[in-house]
Structure formats: structure tokens, C-alpha cells
């Protein structure tokens, strides 16, 4: 019996009261709990910053969705983060209008200033940089989002200011 090795597989954690409350509210809008899967992941991500294995298993159990199905949904949607992210996620648009208006050189500026490439987080955990498809602000290109805020008509100077503002808030 002492030869048994304890499983190191992730286990579901306890969902918090706030998370459960919000998930229950979402459930009232849909006839089946599976439909709430993505919403529930977003709720958990709002509180935890990202969706860990433990969170995913918790949501799957709570909504009675097979974990692999829910993982399939979680990994399909690019705004669900299955890895830890920094306090401020920079969603940098690199679609065609922004590209035409010079987003490549702005992205190089961000990389030089923050020292991170796409998919990486700064060592002070303040910023994660992710490319995002067309943000729908093409008349004000180049554009990006930081958290829930949109920033438009970007220049190296305005980017420096945005970064400084977020550092100050930290």
C-alpha cells in the first residue's frame, strides 16, 4: 500500500461566494447550464486574473460540464487566459488598418520600453503583452486596449504616457 503514489493532478478548488453568486445570475438567462460555461470562466477570470486548472475543474463541476469540454471552450477563446497574466493585459491590435498606420514600429517601441515580447509578462508583474485581432477602431488606428480601456491614435509618446499612468496606479 505504501507503493501507491499520490496523484499530482490538479483538483477543483472551492468557488468563492462572489463567483457562485454571479454564475447563478447568469444561469437565469439560459435554458441549459452548459451555455453558461464561457460566462462562468470570464467571471472566475475577473476575480482571479486568469483561469487555472483548479478554477476550470471547479466551474466544470459546478455546471456539470465534462472538464474536457470546458477546456475545449476555454482554449478556443483568446481572451480566456489559461496562464497567469500581469495586472494589466495589453491587447495590441495588429490587423490591417493598424498595420498600415504603423503598428509594427509601435510594437517594437513597447517591446523596447517594457522588455517583453508577445505572450510575456514584465518582471514586476505589471504588464502582459498580447496581440489581438481587429479591435474595431480602424478610423483611429493604431489602437490597443489595456485592461478594459481603449487607447487610440497611438504614438510612441502616448504609449509612454499610458505605461506611466498604469505604473503610477500600481
Amino acid at each position: 500500500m505504501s507503493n501507491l503514489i499520490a496523484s499530482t493532478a490538479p483538483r477543483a478548488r472551492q468557488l468563492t461566494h462572489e463567483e457562485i453568486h454571479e454564475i447563478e445570475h447568469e444561469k437565469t438567462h439560459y435554458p441549459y447550464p452548459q451555455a453558461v460555461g464561457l460566462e462562468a470562466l470570464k467571471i472566475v477570470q475577473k476575480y482571479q486574473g486568469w483561469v487555472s486548472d483548479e478554477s476550470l475543474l471547479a466551474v466544470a463541476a459546478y455546471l456539470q460540464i465534462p472538464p474536457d469540454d470546458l477546456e475545449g471552450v476555454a482554449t478556443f477563446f483568446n481572451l480566456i487566459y489559461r496562464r497567469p497574466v500581469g495586472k494589466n493585459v495589453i491587447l495590441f491590435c495588429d490587423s490591417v488598418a493598424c498595420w498600415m498606420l504603423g503598428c509594427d514600429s509601435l510594437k517594437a517601441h513597447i517591446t523596447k520600453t517594457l522588455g517583453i515580447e508577445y505572450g510575456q509578462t514584465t518582471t514586476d508583474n505589471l504588464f502582459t503583452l498580447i496581440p489581438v485581432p481587429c479591435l474595431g477602431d480602424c478610423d483611429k488606428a493604431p489602437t490597443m486596449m489595456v485592461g478594459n480601456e481603449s487607447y487610440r491614435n497611438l504614438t510612441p509618446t502616448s504609449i509612454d504616457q499610458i505605461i506611466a499612468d498604469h505604473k503610477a496606479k500600481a
Partner: protein
Amino acid sequence: MQKPLTKNIEKGRAPFNFQQYSAAGGYLSVAKALAMEPKALVTFVKDSGLGGRGGAGFNTGLKWSFTPEPDGGPRYLVVNADEMEPGTFKDRLLMEHDPHLLIEGMITSAYAIQASMAYIFLRGEYKLAEKNLQTAIAEAYVAGVLGKNIHGSNYSLDICLHTSAGRYICGEETALINALEGKRANPRAKPPFPQVSGLWGRPTLVNNVETICNIPGIVTHGIEWYKALGLNGQPGTRICGVSGRVKNPGCWEMPVGTTFRTLLEDYAGGMQDGYQLKAFLPGGGSTDFLLPEHLDLPMLPSDVAKAGSRLGTSLIMVLDDKTCPVGCIHNLIKFFAHESCGWCTPCRDGLPWAEHMLEKLEAGTGSLKDIEILQEMTVYMGPGNTFCALAPGAAEPLQSGLKYFMDEFVSHVNHGCGYKKH
């Protein structure tokens, strides 16, 4: 010029609340609709000539008429607010600045198709639209135009604002339905069409935001009024726009049948100083290039189709003479490759391959064989060979780019990209 879609909008001012919106003539279509038989309302909308504003342009009333007879079970109206087509930003304008227009349109439309429940499928990044729509929905419930027994009638409707979490394919109506059901957003085979079997197997209509925003005007003011709004007998107005290196990028409401030249020169102020127009995509990243010689075409689906392209969303992306066409197409194919849902082989495997070849061409390591293969791929990824319209859409800028800019592609083989990087 009447602008029923944008008359309430003033940039810099908060959107109308329920009282202001009603005082400006809002929500009259709901009472009018409730006094009509739903089937008569469907015919009414069909006769107005309104076509879908999501990019396909199909007659809206006709699309609605394909729903079967009610059988007592749920029926759904879904508003496609997943605006993510590169170069498109018109639905954002409507939702952020006049959310009640969409709500009113939804109530009237839902009644016409006898829907019991309506969803707005909103892209997650549109945070301000989310906030303003939530506020408007709450106000509508308080005012009694949503919920049980609207205006004291037998008709009840609930609206749920569903926010998504990315992925362009969610804008495809059957993929959207799968996403709403809590699944991966792969499209579905059609038939059955959503009108017959959609959300949870029930009759479902999926309509674009701007399409639904046309309904209040049509039902309030009538068909003759709507038909008189466009140029040369065309019905209605539509939101058209411009992005790229023009003096005044943006989007504006204008009569249906306006020409590209009017849009580009009168509204967008023409090209920025020092730049010439080389080509343009008339309706988003998934439409074929048109040339300056096409500028005098009216923005009508049939006229644009005759010129070898697609009107799509009628928001044009301008390619200037200092931007590399191969680089532009590379960026677009990169987008479509990234956004493939992965379901069918031509899209999942064809688009990254095309992206790789375009990358080689841009880097100066491409070959004439690569160009030949790119040409073949526009056929393999064309209509009828794929599970949905994403790959055929991606093929449009590629095939038209190869047609109009072959000399530039060949020059990339011999000399690499000669354009200054942006």
C-alpha cells in the same frame, strides 16, 4: 438628408436615455408592430427592400419568412454584435451612441418572428457598448417595453446581453449559435438553416446590429418613406466608412447608392497629402480589391459584384501607393489563418501555408512557384470547398491581389519588398 440610424447621435454627448429617446420619436414601432399580425409585419419588412448589413445583403424580411409555423416552443432572435471584420467599426458606433435604437429594433423584430427570447451576442472587447446596452436594457424593462405583456398586449420578450471572449469566427451565424450554446465556435452545416433549427434546435434568426437598427424607422414611417431615402430609387440608408491613409477616416450614414468617390472624397477628405490611392477593399478584409477606376460605382451589392468584388460591410479600406500590396495581403492572410476555427482542412492547413509563402515573399526568399501555389490555393479555399465562408473570404484579397498586382509579387521574388517599412 434624413439619417434615421444616426439622428440621435452626437459625439461627445452621452447616449439618449429612455425618456430622451422616446421624446425624439422612439419606441413608436413597438406599438405599431403589436397592432399588426406577425406574418404581415414580416411581409412589410420584406417589401421595404431592407437587406442584411452584416456583409451578405440578403433581404431581411425574406430571411425572416423562412421560419416555420410556431409550435408553442421557444423561438429566438439573436443580434450579431460580434463586429470583428478588419476595417469594420459601424456597429460599435450604433451600440455605443444610441443603444435604445437597437433595443427598439429588437423588440419589433422579435415580435415579427414570434420570438420569446432575444440575445445580443456582443464581442467582449466592446466594453462601452456593453455598459450602454446594459443601461438601456434595464431602462426598457422599467418602462415596460421589455418583459411581460409589453404595452398591455399578450406579447412578452426578454433580452439577454451575452458578451463573448474573442475569435472572429463567432461572427459566422452558426458558429455564433454554437458559442451561445456554450460550445467551441465551429460553424454548422447548412441546411438545416437557423430559421428552422438554430439555438438549441429551435427556430432562430441571427441578424446584424445595423440591420435591426433599420426596423424602427421602417415600421414607424412606412415603406414609401424608406424607399425614398436612397438614391435613384434605392431603399434606405446605410453606414459607410473609410480607414487607411485618408485625411478624415470614420463612418457616416448615407443614402443607399452613394458612390465610392463621394464616400472617399466628400466624407473622408481624400488621401492624405503625399499619398495616392492604389486600390481599396470595398467592404472589409474579406472582399476583393477594387481600383481607382471603380470609384464611380454606386455602393450597391449588384454593381460591386459586377466589378468582381463584394460590397460586404461598405466600410472601405484604402491601400495607398506607399504601402506594399503583398505586405497588406500578408497581414490579412495572417489574420484569417489565426482566426480559422480548425474544423476543415482547406482553411486550417491552407491559410497558414499561404501565410508562410507570403512571409517568404516579403522577406525576399519567395519563388515563382510560391506565387503559382498561392494562385491554386485561392481555388482550393474557394466557395464550395470549405465548411464556412472564412477561407473563401480570405481568398478574396489574395486572388484580387494576384490579379491586379502580379508584377509586384514577381518583383518580390527578384528583389524582396521594396517598400519602406511602416
